[in-house]
């Protein structure tokens, strides 16, 4: 669930930015505290000087959050394909057996479903089931591989969303880096000018 609204003692150059940070667009299970921490980190990195820079920092925070959200989504999708993956593996194993016994694939399917059920009901049964899978010639990570293959049609669009968000984020970060360097250069020039003026003033006094 979202955290209660945090107070912002810090003032920002734009009211809209304050509003965006007071009510970030998050899902019910996401934490606004974590989003604000991310914003603060990016603020430290970009050292925004004006309203434009602040908006860029905010956009970078939103995009980073979106990428993290998509990564979480990928994990969730893979997790939801665990049962079908296990059933699919058992079906493959059962098909070999029932073919030898002259039975149909429908039998293999229903048997696979029955065999997979204890995995989710009783975690203690997992080692024995893993042994069965390995005995059939599959590697220890066969369930993950099968889940990945089954989930691929759903994972591909999420991956594209991540790539697209990453590209936009890179552009914003480059922009931040450029402005940050420009500010640093301007600051150095101002400091050098002040030193030169100070030196000239003290020379004229002598």
């Amino acid at each position: 669930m979202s955290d209660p609204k945090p107070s912002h003692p810090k003032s920002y150059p734009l009211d809209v930015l304050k509003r965006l940070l007071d009510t970030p667009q998050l899902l019910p299970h996401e934490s606004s505290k974590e989003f604000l921490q991310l914003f603060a980190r990016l603020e430290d990195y970009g050292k925004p000087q004006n309203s434009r820079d602040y908006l860029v920092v905010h956009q970078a925070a939103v995009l980073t959050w979106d990428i993290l959200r998509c990564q979480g989504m990928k994990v969730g999708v893979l997790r939801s394909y665990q049962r079908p993956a296990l059933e699919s593996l058992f079906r493959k194993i059962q098909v070999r057996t029932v073919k030898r016994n002259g039975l149909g694939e429908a039998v293999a399917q229903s048997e696979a479903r029955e065999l997979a059920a204890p995995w989710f009901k009783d975690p203690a049964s997992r080692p024995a089931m893993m042994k069965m899978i390995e005995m059939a010639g599959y590697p220890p990570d066969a369930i993950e591989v099968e889940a990945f293959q089954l989930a691929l049609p759903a994972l591909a669009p999420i991956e594209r969303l991540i790539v697209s968000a990453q590209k936009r984020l890179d552009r914003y970060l480059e922009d931040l880096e450029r402005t940050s360097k420009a500010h640093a250069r301007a600051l150095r020039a101002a400091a050098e000018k002040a030193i030169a003026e100070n030196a000239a003033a003290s020379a004229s006094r002598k």
Partner: protein
Amino acid sequence: MASQRQIAANQRNGAKSRGPRSQEGKARSRMNALRHGLAAATIFASDGLASVDDSCVNAMYQRLRQIEVERVKVLNDVHNLSASQELDKLHTAVRRLAALERYSQRSHSKLKKHIF
């Protein structure tokens, strides 16, 4: 099954109809095939009229906001569905998310063209 005479009568009667005639009827029927309007080439303002110039930019902002609201809804659906075993629904929601991303990018580039 309809007889040949009935088919001919249906065709005769159907030919008499020439669709909506009043401006109001035409404007209404123009929206018949509209589902959500997020991918429409012409942007319609909330009053249903095609907008131009300044109001077009406003309508684009409005559309982008609409896409964002829809995106948040679908993201929440994906989150809830990934905890369930409704894989077909999950897949549909993910595809919808990808479609919304396309609409959003298209609207952003249109907006850019209008502003710059």
